[in-house]
């Protein structure tokens, strides 16, 4: 039992190391992808994409574009929900996705 457990734990150690390596590589690939200037230009969705994604027509879709590290806080006071946005690196853009 001891020998089997030792063997399994060493296999799991190898598998975890491999996962760590793949996750690191994936994060790097994603960062390179999103920082590429061409991809930055082509990395957009259209308003109708948003409308299609939130199917019910009675939905209002508000879009928030914020600089990195903007803090969003959602609190639950007794009368309703409060959402606050605080940026330290630039203005925040908020707009409603227009109807079709």
């Amino acid at each position, binding site marked *: 039992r*001891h020998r089997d*457990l030792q063997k*399994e734990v060493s296999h*799991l150690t190898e598998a*975890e*190391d*491999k996962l760590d390596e793949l996750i690191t590589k994936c994060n790097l690939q994603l960062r390179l*992808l999103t920082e590429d200037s061409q991809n930055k230009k082509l990395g957009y969705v259209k308003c109708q994409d948003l409308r299609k*994604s939130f199917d019910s027509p009675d939905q209002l879709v508000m879009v928030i574009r914020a600089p990195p590290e903007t803090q969003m806080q959602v609190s639950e006071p007794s009368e309703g*929900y409060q959402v606050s946005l605080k940026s330290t690196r630039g203005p925040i853009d908020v707009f409603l996705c227009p109807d079709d």
Partner: protein
Amino acid sequence: AQECQNLEVERQKRLERIKQKQSQLQELILQQIAFKNLVQRNRQSEQQTNRPPPPNSVIHLPFIIVNTSKKTVIDCSISNDKFEYLFNFDSMFEIHDDIEVLKRMGMACGLEVGKCSPEDLKTARGLVPKALEPYVTEMAQGPINNVYITG
């Protein structure tokens, strides 16, 4: 017996961590596929129309969306420099990030729900490095749940 017990604890901990890391890797693969698909789609449509879409009709990543019923009353205060916003909702709402929107647009080829057609699987495999292809194939059948033993 004591050593066996310690090894058993170690084994459980590693299995838990591997499970968590596999879902993290799965999410990263989905995001990579979704983003590449989005860029490809936009590139093709711009080539077809021979011009970029009007600036006020597109929303560049990164963004988040808040969707709520049109009946919801939203009270909004904005600081002059637009660095701070305060919203008060009088009804329920949902917040989603851009990746969630891309998934709903089908940009992740259905891998996020483990329903991927053979041609979508081919597309998805073509969008990731070789080392990740086995994971993509695995994801096409549902969430990854077996431990890839190296060697």
